[in-house]
């Protein structure tokens, strides 16, 4: 077993993780940077596999290349294709690849694991042909492939635009965009978007392309059903204010890309039993952090969108802020230097936040979407738990998320509740007349990602199995 103890281990090599790593590397600190993807960049700067020809004209690809180059040139120990599945006492980090298990130790941990996608369930959301909006961006960016030939894009937030733009750019055909927000909601937040002119221009370019292509846009609408019909999907669309009404618009596509914003990935902070708070506009449950993004667990930091969804640029600054705190703790930065650097970084972060917060407001799903979850609709797809199952348990006295989980297995499957946490909270809140934040959050459990038995067990003989005291007779 490797006994080396790293000064800092960073989980996730998106903008935030990289920013922290590069800042720390200036001070000759032993840094371990782990990511379960093949290349650095996270979701926003997701690059194609090395053997693919990448599109150099895309700005994101240039940034990715630049960051990758910087990591290569640094003293950072970088472990791509490694998935962390557990953090335990004394910051022991357990990871695995396709064939092997790994153990690392660190004095400080920075979690920069970004977000997961939120989907509010509807009838047929688990059918083939329905995929997440964020998942679609992976296919579009990394594989430069379209998910289908006849696409409907639905949900809320900026990903609607991203997916539409890239699909059109690749020559794809979009049947319709179904937006749960009204045009008014977009306009209301419009002014704040001027706070970041380059991003604003980019967004404007996207919108222009969509408008020029005359894609039908259904505002204030939601997909209430998607049923397979041979190779196609029959999609039903309703106005948000009339979800219970039988009147609907019927469309057809072969792929439905749907998503309702992003949720901070708190798997590790929950596993470590850090304190969390609920902030709707930052994406939901986030760890409580101090101004340097250190959680209630000493020396355990959470940065980037994993500490509240604000986008790539604020994430980068958060990474730097956590880094200077660690550098200071290691006596490589004086109190004065820390203060000075913090002032500059936090000012920048504050400015960048304005844009991020405006985007967040159009990314959180409208409460009315609750109505699209019918009694028979599957909420937890790992364990096939329906809205009715949740309501039955609530009626029998499951009034918090963890009791509900115990009684129904909702959220206990391989995805560890990442997919259904929000939807389950929404349903339970409605039937117990409580607020989502009063229902608590699911206890974090290992493995944070499912680990194959053959990898966890490794090669061993019977004699090599840990010996343990017999139970008394």
């Amino acid at each position: 077993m490797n006994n080396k103890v790293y000064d800092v281990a960073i989980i996730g090599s998106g903008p935030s993780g990289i920013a922290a790593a590069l800042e720390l590397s200036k001070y000759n600190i032993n840094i371990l940077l782990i990511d379960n993807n093949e290349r650095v960049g996270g979701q926003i700067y997701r690059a194609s596999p090395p053997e693919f020809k990448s599109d150099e004209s895309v700005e994101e690809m240039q940034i990715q290349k630049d960051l990758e180059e910087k990591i290569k040139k640094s003293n950072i120990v970088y472990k791509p294709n490694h998935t962390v599945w557990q953090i335990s006492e004394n910051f022991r980090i357990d990871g695995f690849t396709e064939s092997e298990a790994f153990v690392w130790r660190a004095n400080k941990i920075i979690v920069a694991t970004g977000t997961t996608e939120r989907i509010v369930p509807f009838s047929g959301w688990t059918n083939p042909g329905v995929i997440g909006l964020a998942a679609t961006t992976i296919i579009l960016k990394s594989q430069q492939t379209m998910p289908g030939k006849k696409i409907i894009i639905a949900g809320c937030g900026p990903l609607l635009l991203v997916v539409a733009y890239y699909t059109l750019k690749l020559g794809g055909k979009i049947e319709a965009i179904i937006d749960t927000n009204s045009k008014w909601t977009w306009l209301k937040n419009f002014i704040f978007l001027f706070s970041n002119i380059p991003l604003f221009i980019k967004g404007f370019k996207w919108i222009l392309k969509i408008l020029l292509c005359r894609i039908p846009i259904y505002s204030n609408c939601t997909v209430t059903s998607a049923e397979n019909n041979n190779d196609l999907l029959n999609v039903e669309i309703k106005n948000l204010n009339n979800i219970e009404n039988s009147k609907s618009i019927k469309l057809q596509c072969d792929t439905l890309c749907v998503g309702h914003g992003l949720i901070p990935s708190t798997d590790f902070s929950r596993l470590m039993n850090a304190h969390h708070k609920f902030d709707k506009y930052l994406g939901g449950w986030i760890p409580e952090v101090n101004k340097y993004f250190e959680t209630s667990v000493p020396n355990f930091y959470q940065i980037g969108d994993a500490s509240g969804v604000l986008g790539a640029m604020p994430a980068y600054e958060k990474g730097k802020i956590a880094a200077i705190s660690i550098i200071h703790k290691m006596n490589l930065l004086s109190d004065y230097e820390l203060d000075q650097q913090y002032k500059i970084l936090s000012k920048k972060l504050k400015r960048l936040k304005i844009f991020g917060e405006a985007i967040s407001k159009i990314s959180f799903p409208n409460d009315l979407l609750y109505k699209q979850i019918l009694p028979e609709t599957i909420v937890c797809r790992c364990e096939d738990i329906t809205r009715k199952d949740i309501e039955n348990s609530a009626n029998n006295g499951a009034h918090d998320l963890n009791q509900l989980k115990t009684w129904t297995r909702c959220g206990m499957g391989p995805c560890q509740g990442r997919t259904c946490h929000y939807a389950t909270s929404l349903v339970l809140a409605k039937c117990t007349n409580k607020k989502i934040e009063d229902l608590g959050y699911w206890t974090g459990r290992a493995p944070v990602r499912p680990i194959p038995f053959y990898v966890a067990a490794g090669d061993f003989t019977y004699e090599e199995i840990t010996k343990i005291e017999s139970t008394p007779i």
Partner: protein
Amino acid sequence: MNKTFDTIIVGAGIMGSTVALFLARAGKKVLLIDKSQIFRSASGSNAGTLTIHMTRASLVPYALKGWEMWMNLSEWLSRDIEVKHQPGLCLAFTEEEEKLLVERSKIRNDNGANIKILNSAEAQKIEPSLSKKIRCAAFSEIDGYAYANQTGLAYKKALQKENITILENSEVIKIKKNAKFSVTISNKNINQDYYADQIVLACGVWLGEILKMMNVKINLKCLAQQLIVTERMNNFLNSVITIANGKLSLKQFSNGNVLIGGGWPGVGETKDKFTSTIPENLIGNIRLACYTTPELKNTRISRIWLGLEAETDDAMPIIGKIPDNEGAYIIGSVHSGYTSGPYMGKLLSEYILGKNVNLDSFNISRLIQKQ
């Protein structure tokens, strides 16, 4: 709400809830309190194994009675839990383990079990998915499992039907005895007093702390025990698998999950909600499971958690009266307590109701430390 009851029960797990149920059915007015929620600790997070192979020999008669109650659950509790009667196979891979298995099976048989030793081929015939490397297996027709997660739901329904008052998220902070017991409970920082002639302590690993409130001191260990569950797999396992030294339990539920237990220690204390695995032990448990049932190599681990179990100095239960505290009773630290729990709880309820029940060997006096 009227705050006077016949009996206040502290701890809504398998022990406390069973006592509550049978006292209520005998006409008592019962208040059941839990600092968290019903069955959220050991009783709801254990492996649900209803086995004789892992039971302490002297507790076999109680486990057999408990097993019967589990199998007839619909008669006295509900139909809401998945309970299955399956054969139990306890395995030996080495000569040493074979010796241990034969010896332990004999002791258990002397205490009322009916265990036969099978050779490798005979065991494979009963459970074809077993590793070919086994030397022999102890076979018990009496074995099986209950789905521990769902037990709380079933009990809650039954308790409510008997008009038992259940206070969840309510922590006992003070117990006093005048004419009646007065129990101070804190819920969201609001304190309230409740009164009763009798009190039953049934709060698992937290027994030691509550006993201190009654000036009784015992040494109680808190064991954090690890459980591992797989993704849903095709049905391939139709018996409950254990091994000679007791450090493995393995079964498959009808929804396809395979649950692996065996009481491998992890990290966890009564004062802190935080639990964590000890990675070496986790790997040990995983290896043992894979070795026993090679089919598992093709699946993934979906979830690992830890449950807290109480253990006294002699690893034997405490059930009965609390000395110098007229009207106070205790139940807990029962090895394989989930299996025998319903019967142990029923016994204590009968004892409290004045029936002729002998609980001498579980008397807490043997463990009390002199002040």
